[in-house]
């Protein structure tokens, strides 16, 4: 076992890159008599990755700001209206709000009718506010209840054209008076169709080392290679042999110890509500798979004492995937909701592996921390189809893999 600092050193320089010497390709090309030039790598620079990440965050921030902005502006304005019944119109509104506590419908009807034009003009601001708010308040039914249903007044038809404005006003005041809100009712009544989520998930199957004995040999553990110090036999067997220009017989036995770490996934999801229960899901996921391999090579050259050589490699695979699926809401209360979801996902490997296709099923629970925001936890099972590559990774080792996803959901106003 080597000292710890050597591991740190190796890990620190894992995948390190340096600028190649000038004129290198020209030299190779000349030596091998090639007549092609290297294609400029269409690499996506780190800067571009950061720009893309910043754009996504900015977009999410913008939506959050839009939502927070509306609610934070509305509330003080509404409170102000409620507290300062200075104009006759507002007095009328206040009267309207008090109407349910007294039986003064005839006078209210009279007053509102006479003030109608002024009320409409004056109420522009508050109506705008109400319109905005109407996205958040279950207006018509709730207002009807507060203004008409409770007082079984015969004067209802007399209020006529102004009823709507008054209803809106009344509902605004009712909201400012009561801090109670029902997320579920609010969401379903106001057709809050779009949601954005930020999520992270990880695999749940324990990491384990998988050892294979010379999987590259046909039938037995020992491969006999006769070589005349060719470059290949040298590099694949004993490094020292390159310095000797003599023929030798090399027996090689390789064991590979593979350790696949738990996958990590980060994503942005969008959800479109088709009806009260069903929603369409999609998004963009970034997945990171990390594996460690230890090759132990036993080499016997010309029947000499066996040489043991260890080589450790690490493999980092990055995927960008687009999931598509449906979710079905099973149950909901004021703050909680339970749902199940099914999805399929196609992932592009950013290294050189082929596309990865998977299907999955999950069950989740969401807790609403505010009108717009919810926290959710979603255990799931995914089946990862063989990508057909030769490289080993977590999903090949565990095609049926459980995972757990958690995140934040932002419900957007229509």
């Amino acid at each position, binding site marked *: 076992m080597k000292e710890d600092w050597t591991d740190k050193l190796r890990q620190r320089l894992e995948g390190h890159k*340096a600028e190649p010497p000038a004129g*290198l390709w020209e030299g190779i090309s000349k030596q091998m008599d090639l007549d092609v030039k290297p294609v400029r790598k269409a690499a996506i620079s780190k800067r571009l990755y950061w720009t893309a990440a910043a754009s996504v965050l900015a977009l999410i921030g913008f939506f959050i700001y839009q939502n927070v902005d509306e609610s934070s502006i509305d509330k003080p304005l509404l409170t102000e209206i409620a507290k300062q019944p200075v104009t006759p119109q507002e007095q009328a509104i206040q009267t309207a709000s008090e109407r349910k506590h007294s039986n003064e419908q005839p006078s209210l009807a009279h007053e509102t009718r006479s003030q109608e034009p002024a009320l409409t003009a004056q109420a522009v601001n508050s109506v705008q506010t109400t319109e905005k708010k109407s996205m958040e308040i279950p207006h018509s039914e709730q207002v009807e209840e507060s203004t008409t249903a409770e007082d079984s007044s015969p004067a209802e038809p007399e209020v006529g054209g102004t009823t709507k404005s008054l209803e809106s006003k009344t509902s605004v005041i009712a909201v400012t008076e009561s801090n109670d809100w029902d997320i579920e009712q609010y969401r379903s009544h106001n057709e809050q169709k779009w949601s954005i989520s930020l999520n992270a998930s990880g695999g749940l199957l324990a990491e384990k080392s998988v050892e294979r004995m010379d999987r590259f040999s046909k039938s037995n553990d020992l491969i006999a290679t006769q070589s005349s110090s060719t470059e290949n036999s040298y590099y694949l067997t004993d490094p020292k042999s390159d310095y000797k220009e003599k023929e030798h017989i090399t027996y090689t036995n390789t064991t590979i110890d593979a350790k696949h770490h738990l996958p990590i996934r980060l994503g942005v999801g969008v959800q479109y509500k088709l009806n009260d229960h069903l929603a369409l899901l999609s998004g963009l996921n970034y997945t990171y798979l990390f594996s460690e391999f230890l090759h132990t090579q036993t080499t016997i050259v010309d029947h000499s004492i066996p040489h043991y050589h260890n080589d450790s490699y690490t493999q980092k695979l990055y995927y960008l995937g687009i999931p598509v699926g449906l979710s079905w809401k099973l149950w909901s209360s004021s703050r909680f909701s339970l749902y199940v979801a099914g999805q399929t996902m196609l992932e592009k490997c950013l290294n*050189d592996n082929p596309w990865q296709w998977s299907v999955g099923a999950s069950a989740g629970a969401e807790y609403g921390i505010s009108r717009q925001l919810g926290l959710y936890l979603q255990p799931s099972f995914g089946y990862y189809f063989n990508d057909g590559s030769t490289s080993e990774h977590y999903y090949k080792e565990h095609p049926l893999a459980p995972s757990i996803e958690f995140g934040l959901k932002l419900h957007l106003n229509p």
Partner: protein
Amino acid sequence: MVEQLVERIRQKDQRAMTELYQQYVEELSSVCYRYVPQENDAKDVLQNSFVKIFTSIESLEYRGEASFKGWMKKVVANEALCYLKNRKKLLLVEQDAANIQTEFEEEPEPERISPDNLHQLIMELPDGYRTVLNLFVFEGYSHRQIAELLGISEATSASQLFYAKRLLAKKIKDVTRRKG
């Protein structure tokens, strides 16, 4: 996909060679500079390495990208060693391995500096220190194997590593101190 690239190179597809070159040249350059810090020397080593990679690939059994990349790095490391051995005798300071444990000092803390800085500091080590450190740390050789490879004693290999470690730790500390 690398496997397809390898297959195309086996069929003498020159475009595939340029693609492979483009994909790995920076990582292989990093390995090469660790052994051979001078640009002109590194160019010769890398040139020979790529020629060997392209010509040896035909008989190579592809075992996945990680293994393939490891093999290419090994080609570069071996080529660099060949170059160092042919060019001059390595400057090695003989040291009694028995004294090493008593002189133990601080260990390098590579996590405190950037990979670029660390790479640079390794390049700045004297030839002998750097070569043994590379073989021991990055190639995973034992002192016995290093001794055989470089034609030195195991004790010398151990002492070179000890001094390399101590000097690297000091250099890392200097860099972190300078940066405050």
